[in-house]
């Protein structure tokens, strides 16, 4: 279900710096499946705004720190 993905993320890096939090831990805290976290980390799935905010909240960072957009406005 991934679109041509121009949204980059630092979820993996954030997990590493959060005492090597597992994908399963993050998934449970955000309320998604581990497979969804895996797809987000690989850049194959762009999460909804709600899930993106929840992920950022888990790491106590701003949305822009965890997610960034590479595309240009047409």
């Amino acid at each position, binding site marked *: 279900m991934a679109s041509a993905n121009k949204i980059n993320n630092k979820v993996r890096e954030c997990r590493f710096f959060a005492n090597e939090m597992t994908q399963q831990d993050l998934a449970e805290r955000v309320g*998604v*499946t581990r*497979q*969804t976290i895996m*797809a987000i980390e690989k850049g*194959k*799935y762009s999460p909804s705004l709600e899930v993106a905010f929840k992920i950022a909240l888990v790491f106590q960072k701003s949305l822009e720190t965890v997610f960034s957009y590479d595309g240009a406005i047409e």
Partner: protein
Amino acid sequence: MNMSFKEKSTWLSLLATLLIFGDYAISIFTMDANVLNPDEMVEVAMHNLSSAVLLIIIVEIIFQSLIAAGSGNKVEFDGDERDRLITLSSNNSGYWVLSIGVIITLGQLILPHLSGIEFSLEERTNIPMFEMHLLLFSFIVAEIVRFSHQIYLYRKDAV
């Protein structure tokens, strides 16, 4: 292989549909009109269909329960936003296949009356209750396309 509950459940439904209704389709397409009269063909078809439906219900209940018992996570069981997107997208594919089947069936029923041309697919096959089977097989193919598309989307994101 790393699979969520929803993906395992979809694999099970796909395999069950392919095996059970595949076997039913073979039994229908290989019916010999020289051996059975039309009434007997209908009787055999109905018997095989009711067996296939009963079997798929039993298989789905037993194996889906086993898979569900193995996934202790409520989110995984209910599905998340990605599961819902994948389901919507694959439902769309199945809908198109089913629509084509319905249009072919309607065409088969209506066109001879509208055009006055005597043409019937039914006369060219040995399939009993032809229109019912046309709709049934459209539904089965639509389900197979839906499950396959769903699995494709799950695998594509997982690789």
